[in-house]
């Protein structure tokens, strides 16, 4: 009986944290996090999908599409996208934000 009660207390505490997290999820900060530098919605972005650049009006050529695949050993490394091209320059901000979020630490943990 005691164990059940204690488990319920732990679960209630966990639920409180989850509730706070859920509330945060519905906040405006969450909306900002889900939006890329160019204002594109990234909430449905998954690995292997093309990462839209800021010049999203142009076609999805190799120049302005960043392959969102952090399982690649060269993920985010220099030279994995055409350097100096207009698309690459334009997508720098996006690449940078993706690198900050997913490339550190270099071990590539989830």
């Amino acid at each position, binding site marked *: 009986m005691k164990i059940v009660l*204690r488990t319920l207390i732990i679960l209630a*505490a966990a639920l409180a*944290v989850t509730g706070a997290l859920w509330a945060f999820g519905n906040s405006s900060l969450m909306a900002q996090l*889900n939006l890329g530098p160019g204002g594109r919605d990234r909430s449905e972005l998954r690995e292997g999908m093309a990462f839209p650049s800021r010049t999203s009006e142009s076609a999805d050529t190799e120049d302005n599409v960043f392959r969102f695949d952090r399982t690649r050993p060269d993920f985010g490394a220099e030279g994995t996208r055409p350097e100096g091209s207009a698309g690459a320059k334009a997508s720098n901000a996006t690449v940078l934000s993706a690198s900050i*979020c997913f490339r550190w630490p270099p071990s590539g943990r*989830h």
Partner: protein
Amino acid sequence: MTNAVRRADAREQRKRSRISDTLQNFGIDILIFVAFIVDMNVRITGIAIHEWLGIAFGVSLIVHLLLHWRWISAITQRFFRRVPLNDRINYLLNILLFVDFVVLVVTGLWISEVAMATLGLPVQRGFAWRILHTLSADISIWLIGLHLAFNWKWVANAAKRYLWQPIFARRQRTPVETAELEGAA
């Protein structure tokens, strides 16, 4: 033999055959620690094992808390009275660790690709949940390091008692001694 004596005898026998609380806690803590290390290497485990192990990890945390309930309860009751500074900091650190692990497990469930689909539960995948999941995983490494550091004396004593001594005591024994010990048992 009276009933009372018989009951006391049975109690004593149960006590002797029971695994000590420290050994039980130590064993579970080692399992949790190994699971954490393995789970942090998604490239090695793959996403499916990562997710299921993460869920198991969440359950094992509840077990861990239940096993250390006496300490939690004692410090909670005395927190605003006289508590050693070490225990106070440790308690606050454990609260942070708990919050971090809940965020880690919950966001993991919300961005799940395999486990939740297998269970037939809908998920709300979001970029920010991914960020939070990664961030809480990174923070957890630091917090676990501190958690270990704060409880190092207990870990070292348990390791010495249940790992070190049994291995080295056995090595140092001569075959005759070992045979004698086994015979006595």
